[in-house]
């Protein structure tokens, strides 16, 4: 015989009994909101293919997340919106004209291999979207480096073109100190204007072209206190200082073209794969900027941003280890 249960139980939990009411899904929602301007800009410049790529990546990521959780017999984590963020970020890091099946493969890799294998959100050592991008860059080098001309749907004569990054790479090939040589001058002239770079009127990945839209998103994230200033500032400052010291393309072009803006504000600031402390974040941002520029100048890829962040992802645990906060009152 079981004694009668008390009808209503109080909840027993350890203190505190108050909460700031923040949540993982709210943070992810903020990131999605912050990515909307750049998504819109990408769609404006690259048209329908951009829409399809974004839709495919987001849908595939959600589906893969759901399937993985089902296969692992664990509770679903779609609600935390992290899969949506991964899908969106991956899409924004792809050229608009990529075949959709490749986008599907990349999304499956991002969620399946780079995230759920490690147990899902919070456990992955590498940023899933970036790992997938690196995977795709190596597997599908051609399509991954074929760029739609911005606003091609208005002037349908030429569809694809070279990115400013490839032009800038050529600047390194000639003697940097003598940048007045005709060859370098030619490459420099072919770079988009500063205004075009800000707005995003240049070839590139869907989400990386419009620096202005990215800056608006980053400002929103900073305002909502989703990210802190450390990583973006350290990252971009390193890129600027490096390009001033090493010569080549002008510093503003290095920052505004390629993945630096989206990388510094959205990819490198990924919580899971970056250090926790402010000091660690500064080191992390510096490392990303330095590696990015080293690869741009010396490496065999024109763009080093995603590799730089991936490598720094691997270094993040070490940085974390060496930048532990000093407890209040500790010697």
């Amino acid at each position, binding site marked *: 015989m079981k004694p009668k249960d008390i009808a209503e139980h109080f909840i027993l939990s350890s203190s505190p009994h108050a909460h700031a009411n923040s949540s993982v899904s709210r943070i992810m929602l903020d990131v999605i909101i912050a990515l909307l301007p750049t998504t819109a800009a990408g769609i404006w410049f690259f048209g329908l293919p951009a829409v399809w790529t974004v839709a495919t990546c987001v849908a595939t990521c959600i589906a893969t997340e759901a399937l993985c959780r089902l296969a692992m017999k664990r509770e679903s984590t779609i609600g935390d919106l992290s899969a949506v963020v991964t899908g969106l970020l991956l899409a924004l890091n792809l050229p608009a004209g990529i075949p959709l099946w490749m986008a599907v493969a990349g999304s499956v890799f991002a969620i399946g291999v780079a995230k759920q*294998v490690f147990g899902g959100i919070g456990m992955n050592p590498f940023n899933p979207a970036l790992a997938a991008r690196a995977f795709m860059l190596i597997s599908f080098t051609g399509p991954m480096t074929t760029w739609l001309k911005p606003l091609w749907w208005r002037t349908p004569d030429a569809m694809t073109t070279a990115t400013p990054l490839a032009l800038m790479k050529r600047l390194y090939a000639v003697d940097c100190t003598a940048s007045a040589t005709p060859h370098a001058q030619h490459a420099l002239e072919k770079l988009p204007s500063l205004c075009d770079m800000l707005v995003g009127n240049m070839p590139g990945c869907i989400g990386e072209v419009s620096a202005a839209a990215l800056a608006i998103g980053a400002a929103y994230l900073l305002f909502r206190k989703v990210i802190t200033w450390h990583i973006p500032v350290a990252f971009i400052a390193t890129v600027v200082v490096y390009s001033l010291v090493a010569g080549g393309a002008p510093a503003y072009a290095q920052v505004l073209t390629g993945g630096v803006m989206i990388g510094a504000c959205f990819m490198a600031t990924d919580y899971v794969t970056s250090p926790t402390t402010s000091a660690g974040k500064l080191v992390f941002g510096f490392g990303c900027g330095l590696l990015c520029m080293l690869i741009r100048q010396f490496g065999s890829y024109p763009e080093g941003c995603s590799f730089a962040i*991936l490598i720094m992802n691997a270094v993040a645990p070490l940085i974390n280890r060496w930048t532990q906060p000093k407890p209040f009152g500790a010697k």
Partner: protein
Amino acid sequence: MLLIGAVLVNNFVLNRFLGCCPFLGVSKKMDTALGMSGAVVFVMTIASAVTWCIDHWLLSPNGLGYIHTLAFILVIASLVQFIDIAMKRFLPPLHAALGIFLPLITTNCAVLGAAEINCKQGSAFGESVFFSFAAALGFGFALVLFSGIREKLAHADPPRCFRGIALALVTGGLLSLAFMGFSGLVKLPY
């Protein structure tokens, strides 16, 4: 340049896939990874010096280049044993720190790999010793990096079938993917 090339671009583990056994085996804890790295740097530098001598003065003059693998295995294995014994006797603190890793290095193909590459290159003595030293540093760097990630993964909760080595392999693959970004950074002759 040679240093950057061997450490980052043509990293022994992540690019040449040499020495994967200790890479997976002793990377669970940062401390042991550091110890192992130290031991590998130590042994690899000495081993390349010794094998260079053997190759240069004993095998090549006699036209016996084809048996160097056999000879090197023999030499390296006994060399490691000897270092182990000698260290225990003369440098007990160092032995306490590196001792348990020494026997593991006996069968580390990275050591043999470095000797082989040097041999194939026909590098000079100084160059081959330095290359081995740099390659060992690269091995150690990858090992420490990897152990940092694995320490973090120790708190992760992967699906049961991926626990342990499977997860480490996936992580190693992703790390090697990241290191591909370094390709072309330094144009190495080999």
